[in-house]
């Protein structure tokens, strides 16, 4: 006898299992119409692969898995796809979802099946692909895609087969084990093969199913799986609880069983795996218990996925008149259906049509007296009375501190609550509110980060600009001081300052332009080279892709076209830069135009500088009188030119008219000042005093 660990808490509600155990598994008649919701599992909905009007064979794929966590969907019978539309589905919220509607032709024509009873010779990954292709999802209730669960990120040392079936009324797994134990045994072997032969294989079964246990034990003869009978106590069949009972280990909060080297599969899923691998049959049917006081012939049915609930209930002698609650799933965790036209899905293990006797009266809840019965019953060791208190107060911090998220919603607390408070409903609502808040927090965090990043970026750009300005200013100062030092005015006159300033500025500009133009040229040339390489690569790739593969081929072609366009643009820019003949500064004066970006422009600028320097040298060698005269002549020349420009601008209606007028006025002023100086200089020539312009 293997050691087991006690389930903390738990309850023992009336089992009510015998009602549905009176008959062997039955087949309901083939329904005329089957409804296949695209989202029967946890994860991404499947994607339809059939069109309306298409004829499909039994077992043919009608929808593909999409993404990592998803499952394929198969036609449960042969027939015609009547519609792909939203239909009411079985869901706690009573909503609708997209369904494939299949009208059966009654012929049950199978698609060709590829059975692999030689699975042991296949690689685990190949077997896993077979399981994935069969669209198998967890059949115990949650409906998690099995193939995903069977490729864990951690090494697995224990495989647990969940045969506990702890909810009252449900006997689907019980009869499956009684009638089809050999298939389950093979299924376990397949799972072990897929998981790389884990060290331990345990089957957990509650001790209220002796027939099933003995049938399974017979079938397991020679297998290394260990059948462990555990005390009947709800919710021992919860995945986390069964792991705790069988191994004494706990799944870390927020983690998966795989994190502690355990994979847990339901016994129904195990049988579906056997069918999928050894017979090639996809998951198109399951065993569902139909029971409750409102069913005259309670029992278990092998029902096609997509069978309307109404159709199945009729097969069990359902009497709507005495049905108080129609529950999909068990009485502890199942949800009520508002209508009977929803379909049976892969995870439907039970339909419970409860009569008045079986339904609690739903009294008005009394005040919580914190009696603590709920905490005694909680299998997760929570304090349900405190959670209830904080859920009502919407104190989410306290709820988190009390580990609301570790609540498995088994309903044991609400079952024992003497005040009949619907505790689980409070927890579900609080969890939903917390989920919404977390979503909103994620969105607002994103927005905040985006905004802060934007702000940082703008500030950085502003700082860089300021730094550049500062640098330019410094460079200009340095340039000014060098020129000033090397060529001091010998006679102390300041009249030449204007000219020397202008020259220095022009020199600096030209230097800057020269370097920037060269850098730009080099950059453009490099760009061009890189683009050429890219183009070559892309073209060689294109030749590798066959033209039949339209998608990738088109993409590659588009990429090449993009590179070509870019190359043309860069080449154009380069050409323009090379050929550019910008206006050469005609004058070194204040009105001098910025130097061009071309090499020739640079040369011209250099010439101009040379001229200016020559002039400066001449000026220095001249006598003050000559200098003044010379200056006056130049000013007069510039004035004439400026006046001409002004006249031109006036006739053309140039928008820079004001600037030209200002320039003329400024030159006139300078000239007048110079003439005044001359007069004064002549007048006081004898005294040898000289006054500057300024």
């Amino acid at each position, binding site marked *: 006898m293997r050691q087991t660990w006690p389930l903390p808490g738990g309850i023992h509600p009336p089992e009510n299992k015998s009602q549905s155990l009176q008959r062997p598994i039955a087949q309901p008649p083939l329904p005329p119409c089957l409804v296949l919701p695209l989202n029967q599992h946890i994860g991404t909905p499947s994607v339809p692969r059939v069109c309306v009007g298409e004829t499909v064979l039994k077992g043919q794929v009608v929808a593909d898995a999409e993404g990592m966590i998803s499952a394929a969907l198969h036609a449960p019978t042969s027939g015609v796809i009547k519609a792909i539309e939203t239909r009411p589905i079985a869901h706690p919220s009573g909503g609708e979802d997209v369904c494939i509607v299949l009208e059966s032709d009654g012929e049950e024509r199978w698609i060709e099946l590829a059975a692999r009873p030689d699975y042991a010779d296949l690689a685990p990954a190949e077997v896993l692909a077979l399981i994935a292709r069969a669209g198998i999802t967890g059949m115990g209730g949650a409906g998690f895609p099995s193939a995903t669960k069977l490729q864990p990120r951690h090494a697995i040392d224990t495989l647990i087969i969940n045969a506990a079936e702890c909810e009252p009324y449900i006997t689907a797994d019980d009869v499956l084990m009684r009638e089809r134990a050999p298939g389950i045994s093979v299924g376990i072997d397949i799972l072990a093969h897929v998981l790389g032969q884990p060290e331990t294989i345990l089957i957990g079964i509650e001790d209220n199913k002796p027939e099933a246990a003995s049938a399974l034990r017979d079938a397991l003869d020679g297998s290394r799986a260990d059948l462990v009978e555990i005390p009947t106590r709800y919710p021992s069949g919860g995945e*986390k609880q069964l792991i705790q009972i069988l191994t004494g280990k706990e799944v870390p909060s927020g983690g998966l069983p795989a994190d502690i080297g355990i994979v847990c599969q339901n016994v129904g899923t195990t049988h579906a795996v056997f069918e999928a691998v050894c017979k090639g049959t996809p998951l198109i049917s399951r065993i569902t218990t139909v029971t409750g006081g409102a069913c005259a012939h309670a029992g278990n049915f092998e029902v096609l996925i997509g069978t309307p609930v109404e159709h199945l209930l009729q097969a069990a002698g359902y009497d709507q008149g005495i049905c*108080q609650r*129609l529950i999909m799933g068990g*009485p502890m965790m199942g949800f009520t259906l508002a209508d009977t036209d929803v379909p049976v899905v892969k995870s439907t293990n039970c339909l419970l049509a409860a009569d008045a006797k079986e339904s609690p009266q739903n009294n008005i809840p009394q*005040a919580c007296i914190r009696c*603590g019965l709920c905490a005694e019953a909680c299998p997760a060791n929570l304090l349900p009375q405190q959670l209830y208190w904080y859920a009502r107060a919407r104190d989410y911090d306290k709820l988190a*501190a*009390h580990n609301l998220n570790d609540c498995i*919603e088994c309903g044991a607390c609400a079952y024992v609550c003497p005040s009949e408070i619907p505790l689980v409903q409070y927890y579900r609502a609080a969890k939903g509110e917390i989920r919404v808040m977390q979503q909103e927090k994620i969105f607002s965090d994103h927005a905040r980060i985006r905004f802060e990043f934007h702000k940082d970026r703008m500030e950085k750009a502003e700082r860089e600009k300021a730094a550049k300005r500062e640098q330019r200013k410094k460079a200009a100062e340095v340039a000014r001081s060098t020129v000033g030092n090397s060529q001091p005015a010998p006679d102390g006159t300041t009249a030449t300052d204007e000219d020397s300033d202008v020259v220095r500025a022009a020199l600096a500009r030209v230097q800057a332009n020269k370097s920037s133009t060269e850098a730009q040229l080099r950059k453009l040339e490099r760009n061009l080279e890189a683009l050429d390489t890219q183009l070559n690569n892309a073209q060689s790739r294109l030749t590798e892709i066959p033209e039949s593969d339209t998608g990738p081929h088109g993409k590659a072609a588009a990429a090449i076209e993009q590179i070509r366009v870019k190359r043309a643009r860069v080449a154009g820019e380069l050409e323009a830069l090379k050929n550019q003949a910008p206006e050469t500064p005609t004058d070194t004066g204040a009105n001098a135009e910025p130097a061009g970006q071309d090499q020739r422009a640079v040369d011209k600028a250099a010439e101009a500088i040379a001229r200016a320097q020559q002039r400066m040298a001449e000026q220095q060698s001249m006598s003050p009188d000559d200098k003044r005269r010379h200056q006056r002549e130049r000013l007069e020349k510039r004035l004439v030119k400026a006046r001409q420009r002004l006249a031109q601008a006036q006739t053309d209606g140039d928008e820079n008219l004001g600037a030209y007028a200002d320039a003329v006025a400024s030159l006139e002023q300078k000239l007048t000042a110079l003439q005044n100086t001359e007069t004064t200089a002549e007048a006081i020539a004898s005294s040898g005093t000289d006054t500057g312009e300024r």
Partner: protein
Amino acid sequence: MPLALITSPHQHAAQTTQRVMQHLLLATVPGLVALTWHFGWGTLINVALASITALGCEAAVVVLRRRPVGFYLRDCSALVTAVLLGLALPPLAPWWIPVVGSAFAIVIAKHLYGGLGYNPFNPAMVGYVVLLISFPVEMTRWLAPASILPDGASLPDLQASLQLVFPLLGNTPIDAFTMATPLDTFKHSQGLLVEQVLAENVWFTQGTWSGAGWEWVNLGFLAGGCYLLLQRVFTWHAPVAMLAGLSLMALLNYDAGSSTSGGPLDLHLLSGATMLGAFFIVTDPVTSAVSHLGRLIYGALVGVLIYIIRIWGNYPDAVAFAVLLMNFAAPFIDYYTLPRTYGHEKRGRATKMKD
């Protein structure tokens, strides 16, 4: 007909709040019988007066709060409060003692805090303490049990008892039957060794363990408490911890029975309101800590406080004060005694906020 949409679970155990309260009431019967047997009609009259007042006050407040009266009276919680208060009061106290105490318990201590489930303090103990502080003379006038009354004297019969409780009905002197309780006697026998007290005092010469009559009253409440434990109305943690805390203090301070000794263990366990407190007051779920560990700490500290007040305080008994003081501390205890949840390595703290 559309089917009803109701959330799971779709089954419910038979236990109801009303039944929990009824179990409690039933469990008080042995203690009540013992009290009546040894001290006469007084306790029954107390319980009756307190109950009538409590139900009346509950109904009045519920009407004022515009709630359905029947719904609230049916849960029997007011009756439990009244019965516990009535059991704790001295028998044959004037009629207004249980009336005032019961009214205060229900109106002030229970409903002004929000009614059942929301009261931070045990209403019966609040009522008791209000009376004890306000009317010390009436509240400390305990009777002598029938077994140690002098020869020829007997406890008043029903008519005399009613006259004592309702002075308007007639005049009967009560002093003939009153007597200090064993705890009081012991508290005021400081010049004597424990052995001398036990050998000389009529309480202990007539009693088996810890005072004639009182020991049976306590055993009655102990029996009722065991019944409740078997019925799983509460867990063993708080009462056992309280008795253990009290025992530990009594043993540590016994000092071989000198004249300054705190008294023998059996006196503390089987006298005064020890068992009533352990199984009917400390176990009040509304005002105690919630987790197992929390209830252990809560109960143990109540036990320690009872001893401290009994020996070094001004009152011969101290269950009410000890319980009220620990009622204050219960939320604090709760913060630090969360159970370790499945999948967590260690127990959390309710004060830890997510950042």
